[in-house]
């Protein structure tokens, strides 16, 4: 697959590593658009056909399929070139061009985040036009911290913070659902610059404080990795420890797909866990500020956390009128209560969920840890089955209409 960048010059070209590939034909068999072909020597990807769907990645037994080179679009590696390789070419220096484009790392993170829905989905038809990549690694925007508040209670096992960044006189226009990149200062233990970390914007387009040039982020202090090993997340600890008045290098904005519809009457079905709530908060806040316009459309939220004190924005959320948003909270670690996950609540509210799925005006957003993906998918499948619908045939059509958006990490 080949993630096309937002400006035309640079392509994140999908390639297959001929040194690792065992020519088993699985990718060619899997590719839904026939972008992969081979001769007696190599398996290769046609950059003109590949559409970033990711379907070939997980079936590959070797990992050879997961190879990428950032190239100038005009000089993408042709099939003939790829067929002649014994090894992958080195990453050529396209920095001059890349500086005006989506960094490789961002493209990789974005591709991974949307992998669960089968690649980047179409945006809703009525979404506002997003600005992307105005500020780059070579020329980041400098923002000032104007707020850093804990969102989790003192008894909580995690530290989640609401951080407000002000861009002053620098343009940094964002839409709800977009992300921005934080560049932690310094280098890692091997002297390389730290990777960029992406955060979803938690505030609506007109700013955390309306009509000021600022955005809010929801940041969880990372103290362990996915397997539970203690590790201090570089960017999250950097952000959580920032004092008011400190400056931060920010790149972006990024994201052209996970955007909210703007037309009157559009409904939102939002499912999130933990800091996956950031884009949901942004969208909800956007709609709250426009309550007086009486544009119609329902909001339904499924929100999971370990316990109420670890649920970001729990207080403000509970104060929202019930007829404005239908809130369903799932807690998995409340002593004395059975564990409950968002997928359990989706099943309980199956009738309403299916009504929304069937409603062409309803747009679905899922954001949270990778591990929630499968549970949510299963829950959708179950509630659909109970209504004689087939989720697996419904999903592609939802995506096509820009009605299903998933971002997991």
């Amino acid at each position, binding site marked *: 697959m080949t993630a096309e960048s937002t400006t035309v010059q640079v392509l994140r070209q999908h390639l297959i590593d001929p*040194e*690792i590939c*065992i020519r088993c034909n699985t990718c060619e*068999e*899997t590719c839904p658009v026939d972008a992969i072909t081979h001769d007696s020597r190599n398996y290769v990807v046609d950059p003109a056909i590949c559409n970033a769907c990711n379907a070939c990645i997980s*079936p*590959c037994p070797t*990992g050879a399929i997961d190879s990428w080179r950032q190239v100038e679009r005009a000089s993408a590696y042709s099939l003939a070139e790829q067929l002649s390789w014994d090894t992958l070419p080195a990453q050529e220096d396209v920095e001059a061009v890349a500086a005006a484009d989506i960094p490789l790392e961002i493209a990789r993170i974005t591709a991974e985040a949307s992998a*669960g829905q*089968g690649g980047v989905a179409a945006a809703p038809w009525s979404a506002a036009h997003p600005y992307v990549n105005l500020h780059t690694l070579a020329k980041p925007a400098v923002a000032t911290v104007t707020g850093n508040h804990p969102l989790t209670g003192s008894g909580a096992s995690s530290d989640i913070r609401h951080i407000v960044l002000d861009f002053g006189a620098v343009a940094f226009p964002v839409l709800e659902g977009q992300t921005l990149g934080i560049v932690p200062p310094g280098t890692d233990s091997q002297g390389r610059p730290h990777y960029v970390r992406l955060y979803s914007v938690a505030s609506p387009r007109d700013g955390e404080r309306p009509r000021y040039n600022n955005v809010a982020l929801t940041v969880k202090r990372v103290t362990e990795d996915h397997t539970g090993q203690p590790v201090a997340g570089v960017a999250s600890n950097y952000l959580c420890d920032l004092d008011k008045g400190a400056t931060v290098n920010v790149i972006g904005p990024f994201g052209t797909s996970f955007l909210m519809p703007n037309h009157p009457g559009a409904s939102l079905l939002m499912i999130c866990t933990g800091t996956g709530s950031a884009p949901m908060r942004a969208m909800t806040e956007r709609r709250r500020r426009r309550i007086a316009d009486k544009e119609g459309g329902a909001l339904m939220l499924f929100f999971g956390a370990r316990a109420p004190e670890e649920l970001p924005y729990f207080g403000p959320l509970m104060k929202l009128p019930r007829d404005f948003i239908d809130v369903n909270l799932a807690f998995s670690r409340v002593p004395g209560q059975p564990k409950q996950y968002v997928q359990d609540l989706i099943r309980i509210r199956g009738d309403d969920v299916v009504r929304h799925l069937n409603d062409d005006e309803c747009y679905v957003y899922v954001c949270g840890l990778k591990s929630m993906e499968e549970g949510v998918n299963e829950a959708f499948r179950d509630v659909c089955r109970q209504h004689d619908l087939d989720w697996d045939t419904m999903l592609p059509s939802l995506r096509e209409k820009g009605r299903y958006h998933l971002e997991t990490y």
Partner: protein
Amino acid sequence: MEAINYSEKIPNNVNLAGDRALQRALEHWQPNFLQWWAEMGPEGTRNFDVYLRTAVSVDPGGWAHFDFVKMPDYRWGIFLAPAASERKIHFGEHLGEPAWQDVPGEHRANLRRIIVTQGDTEPASIEQQRHLGLTAPSLYDLRNLFQINVEEGRHLWAMVYLLHRYFGRDGREEADALLQRRSGDTDNPRILGAFNEKTPDWLAFYMFTHFTDRDGKFQLCALAESSFDPLARTTKFMLTEEAHHMFVGEAGISRILQRTCEVMNELHTDDPSRLREAGVIDLPTIQRYLNFHFAVTIDLFGADQSSNAATFYGAGLKGRFDESKRGDDHRLHDATYKVLDMAEGKLVERDAPMLNALNEVLRDDFIKDSVGGIGRWNRIMEKAGIPFRLALPHKAFNRKIGSFANMRVAPDGRVIDEAEWAAHERDWLASPEDRAFVASLMGGIKAPGRYANWIAPPAMAINKQPADFEYVRFN
């Protein structure tokens, strides 16, 4: 007997929950399978937690379901690749007719035989490999072995599903017999020769997975063309798993070659005895293992002239590799194919009717694919600046089936007499001493991130895990 919770225990896309007859058949068979697994599956592994990939659905997302699993609790699923709408038969006498969703009476016996022969290889390879877990060169390799074992188990399930679902009482009896034959057993052996050979060490295991699982690829590809749609769709899905098995073999040998080359360059020697002292496998020994496994594997394609093969093709039961991509008439009445024959003490080519030579066609496709693999291995020596190159032996070398059976042919294709064979057998095929040396290197490495001295670490970890990931927990 406890009833099985079908949707939970047996991930499937064949509506198992709604098929009572199939449930009853499996309820009878499943406990016997688990009993067989306990007796003949990987030795002493009942309690291990293994980081395994389980297929939970046939779409790309359902593939990479990784988790720690105890092997007896592995969810052996039943999956058919998605149906193509209005699939048509595309070769043989029924060309152009709709593919069969059920077994036509006149082809019942032949189809059952094809499915049983394929199905028999799956438990056989697990039996052949059951002791290897004790001597794995790393946790990574141990995990890969177990992944292959559970997937061969799933392939058995796939064939048993077809037998139960489409072949009535006969099918059920054949399914039971699949659990009763034993690899290498003199009274009740597995059906095919290569599956009664021993897989005594990890060099043999990698050779087996490289060559013999590649035979599996070609057999499955030929069956994926079948007019019997459930068989075609089942084998299509199995191919995706077969790819992992070939990867383990090809990468395993690559890593051995890489390590040997490193030591050759460190010691500036190609002397096998010095390399053996240094604890790595010398390249000529690897070539001798290769010769053995290649010959045993190409025997699996059957006799070079076969009326069965012609019948299977004409009836539309089994196609050629890449049948749909070939440009001929897909009936082959007038087609010929070059086969090897003996004339005046030499091997010569002659034309034979292609229908009768279809085993040879498939064998040659396999050989072409194998040549590519050898080329990739040779690049390791090339990169290391070592002049030694591996080569495939001639296809008449050391054959036990077909017209070269029991003829003496050198690896270069010369027909030779018994005396010359006896003088060189030890140069061409791994000797008991070679095998004893390789066996002496085998010792289980159980520390995460550590590898035996005779093999290089892999280029990539499984599922992007860190290099020192603990793939197997012994408990």
